[in-house]
């Protein structure tokens, strides 16, 4: 089990194996299962992501009746050519919304790393596969890259909003996704971890303040931010930009920042958006 991203890089240098394979090997060793089994499991998770993406239903509404249908609006605007950020980013936005909405509507999704942040990784990966025509094997490899980054984040910091705020959920997802895209773009180990660092850095301090305590507002739209940020950071890293603060130190900063966040901003529904006038009205209307 890796305690730092730099340990992964050291292993890459020592063995000559690619990032994804090092994570696969490590998992097979840690859980004492054949590599084929771990590969098959990751493949099935990717299939579940694609299935969840494909089975989006724009007519569903969540428990609060406030979530649902937004992903379809972006798809519509995309078809009309009205999305400024272009067809690739437009699709990323639509997919992130759709997955997060499906989650809010009690549909089947893949936690990555959590339910609240389940839209980020599939939004970028599935869009990459569709638009850039990677082989399925390459997509599974990218999943291992994302998982390896997430594992180090969980080891050094946290991946739940209750512990570290939204930077720990959407921030971690964005970081994992950024590393995975860098890999797909042909980035080496260093580009992968610097993309991950750039993405996490941009999300430091983000709070967990869901209205009425539900994984809806702001969670669904924050998935979009995490996904879009991941693409931008992978582009930066692959263009040769590095994080001036080394990636492992960025993760440590996320931990410190999370610990410093007051209780009210860590999934308690007692601060931020949850405590706005409208946020409280929504809460009262749901629980009355």
């Amino acid at each position, binding site marked *: 089990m890796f305690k730092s991203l730099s340990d992964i890089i050291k292993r890459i240098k020592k063995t000559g194996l690619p990032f994804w394979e090092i994570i696969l090997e490590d998992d097979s060793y*840690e859980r004492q299962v054949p590599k084929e089994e771990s590969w098959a499991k990751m493949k099935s*998770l990717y299939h579940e992501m694609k299935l969840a993406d494909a089975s989006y239903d724009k007519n569903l509404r969540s428990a609060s009746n406030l979530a649902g249908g937004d992903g379809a609006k972006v798809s519509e605007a995309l078809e009309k050519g009205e999305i400024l950020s272009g067809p690739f980013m437009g699709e990323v936005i639509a997919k992130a919304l759709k997955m997060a909405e499906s989650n809010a*509507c009690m549909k089947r999704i893949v936690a990555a790393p959590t339910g609240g942040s389940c839209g980020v990784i599939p939004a970028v990966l599935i869009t990459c596969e569709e638009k850039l025509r990677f082989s399925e094997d390459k997509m599974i490899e990218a999943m291992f890259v994302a998982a390896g980054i*997430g594992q180090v984040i969980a080891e050094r910091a946290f991946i739940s909003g209750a512990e570290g705020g939204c930077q720990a959920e959407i921030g971690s997802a964005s970081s994992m996704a950024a590393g995975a895209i860098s890999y797909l773009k042909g980035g080496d180990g260093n580009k992968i971890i610097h993309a991950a660092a750039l993405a996490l850095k941009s999300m430091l301090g983000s709070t967990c303040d869901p209205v009425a305590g*539900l*994984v809806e507002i702001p969670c669904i739209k924050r998935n979009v931010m995490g996904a879009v940020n991941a693409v931008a950071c992978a582009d930066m890293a692959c263009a040769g930009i590095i994080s001036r603060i080394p990636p492992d130190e960025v993760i440590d900063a996320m931990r410190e920042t999370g610990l410093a966040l007051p209780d009210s901003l860590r*999934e308690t*529904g007692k601060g931020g958006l949850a405590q706005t006038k409208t946020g409280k009205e929504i809460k009262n209307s749901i*629980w009355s």
Partner: protein
Amino acid sequence: MNIYDIIGPVMVGPSSSHTAGAVRIGLLSRKLMDENIIKADIFLHGSFYATGKGHGTDLALVAGLLGMKEDDDRIPSSFHIAEELELQYSFSGIILRDVHPNSALLKLTGISGKYMEIIGSSLGGGRIMINQIDGLNVNFSGNYPTLIVHNIDEPGHIADVTAMLSHKSINIAQMQLYRDGRGGNAVMVIECDQEVPYESVKWLEKVEGVVKVSYLSLLD
């Protein structure tokens, strides 16, 4: 945490802690009961109580008690299914001492009249912990086949159990002992690397001084 705690589980939304974790608490409880449940009084603590409803925590716990896993598409309709299968359930709030904010107390009655009280917590990302069984502390995750032996606190019982396990070539991954006072009630929680055969569990139930044996199998 392994990489499949990071990506995964496949789950019905919205929350890995409040929905998926809740299903797992229910399912583990169902497995520990080892028979169909006909009555479940469920007490929600902390954040489970405060925000559980909007997260489907109630639906999820009942789904688990009916034997569903966290990726079961039928979770949203678990109340209807409970009615069909004649599982009576109730929900109330409770304040439990020294537990994680996402916790529930389940008072369960099985079809044979068997009764169990279980406290479980959802730790985040779908990972859970069973904290208490019938008023005695235990702490296990349900990631291993787990044997839980309630016995009278007197010499020899630990040896009885470990001798049986070694006889069956079962490796102990972790073992915890708790008691409520010298000579009182004690409990052993043994997480194993292999499954414990059914007849060995039944044999243990007959050993003198053993009050109750529960076994969590990972087999479906």
